[in-house]
């Protein structure tokens, strides 16, 4: 087990947003966390990332306890993050945004892949970035910002990537491209925990799913099992 979250509880001031949540992600898989708006999916990711402070529970990553650690420690442990609102640095250029993510660029890291992500490799998969590398983040379209956020996270060469709604607000064509990129990096060895509203994207990527009701995990199973259970699907996802 790569990531194990046990009995997590998180509050925003007085509202109890995550209640006794447990989940786990295995090495090399894509796990999806699905559920309707406001259930606490993003907060779960933020809690893992150290951006929200859990009040109790435990987060174990490759045997290391990351509970309550500041975000930079979590990131340094090898976890990457793509936030739902992208959080591109509006006052930095495209190249600087990528540089901000740069980590483990040399071959000294203990990563299990030969191919480290570098700016050049990012430019290879998103060629438009090369042409517009000196442009400020604030002038990018939503789709472009989403791709930049993915590129920035890859630059950190994480072993586990937390992805929050990567296809939100993207045109269908781009959605397909993003889906393919995620699949490729997973096949290259990266583990993914994916939060996604677009069910078909999630279904085509995920090996296993967790469904979230209000503040808790309500269902856990493989993608195939879920496909076979339309009632659960309707209850949690309204598709």
């Amino acid at each position, binding site marked *: 087990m790569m990531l194990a979250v046990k009995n997590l509880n998180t509050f925003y*001031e*007085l*509202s109890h947003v995550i209640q006794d949540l447990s989940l786990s992600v295995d090495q090399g898989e894509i796990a999806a966390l699905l559920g*309707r*708006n*406001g*259930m606490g999916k993003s907060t779960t990711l933020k809690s893992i990332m150290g951006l929200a402070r859990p009040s109790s529970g435990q987060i174990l990553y490759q045997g290391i306890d990351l509970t309550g650690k500041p975000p930079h420690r979590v990131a340094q442990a090898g976890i990457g993050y793509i936030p739902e609102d992208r959080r591109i640095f509006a006052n930095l250029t495209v190249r600087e945004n990528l540089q901000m993510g740069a980590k483990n660029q040399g071959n000294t890291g203990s990563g299990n892949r030969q191919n480290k992500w570098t700016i050049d490799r990012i430019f290879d998969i998103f060629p438009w970035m090369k042409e517009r590398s000196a442009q400020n983040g604030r002038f990018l379209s*939503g789709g472009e910002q989403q791709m930049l956020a993915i590129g920035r996270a890859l630059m950190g060469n994480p072993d586990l990537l937390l992805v929050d709604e990567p296809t*939100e*607000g993207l045109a*269908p064509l781009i*959605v*397909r491209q993003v*889906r393919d990129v995620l699949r490729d990096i997973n096949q290259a060895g990266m583990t993914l925990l994916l939060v996604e509203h*677009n069910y*078909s*994207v999630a279904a085509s990527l995920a090996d296993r799913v967790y469904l979230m*009701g*209000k503040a808790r995990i309500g269902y856990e199973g493989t993608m195939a099992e879920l496909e076979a259970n339309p009632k659960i699907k309707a*209850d949690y996802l*309204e598709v």
Partner: protein
Amino acid sequence: MTGILETRDLCHDFNGLKVLTHIQFSVQPGERHAIIGPNGAGKTTFFNLVTGVYTPASGRILFKDVDVTKAKPYRLTRMGLGRSFQITSIFQRQTPFQNIRLAILSKNRIRFNLFVRVDRMNAINEQTNEILQEIQLADEAHLPTSTLSYGKQRSLDLGMALATAPDLLLFDEPTAGMSRDESHSAVELIRKLTEGKTMVIVEHDMDVVFSLADRITVLHRGEILATGTPYEIQENDAVKKAYLGESEV
């Protein structure tokens, strides 16, 4: 016949980023109108223009046949326009009672009263309690608002918009972030409270839209893609393509 709310050639941009272009929009009195469209289509921006948060780059806005293009929010509220917010906007540090009471004070045009203790104003307190009953918050009336569940906070947001007794109500994603049950009761509440009133609602949840709206406008990239009855919209190809989507990606 002109509508209670009309926009003529409404355009807006943020430092050159065009968000709305030439919007011709009209709501008839008594109508329940929904605006739908993809994220970033400009729906919230449209609300912000109509309610006076931003001044439009060009075009005109008419409310009850009065030009309100440059009117400030408080003026519009006084003219009978109520609004709830996409991001819940209430007074977190106070009780629901105090929240609603402020709206009731405004409705009664009590703005600069320095001479009476507000907790001794019985008429105000009664009206406040009535609203709290209506939005089913009477039991929690004196708890700190920040301890309420998300759904109840949304109800409070609605209640404040209602308490000013508006003729036209604008709801920006009133059920966003609500659980299925909460969402369901919120829709019922809205239906009950807006009985016989005019309202415009922005909502991503199609169940909510189709169960509440008489007419739907689809906004896409700052332009109106289509306007029509729920049935017409559901069948509209352009809308399907841009927003509702086919079953496969």
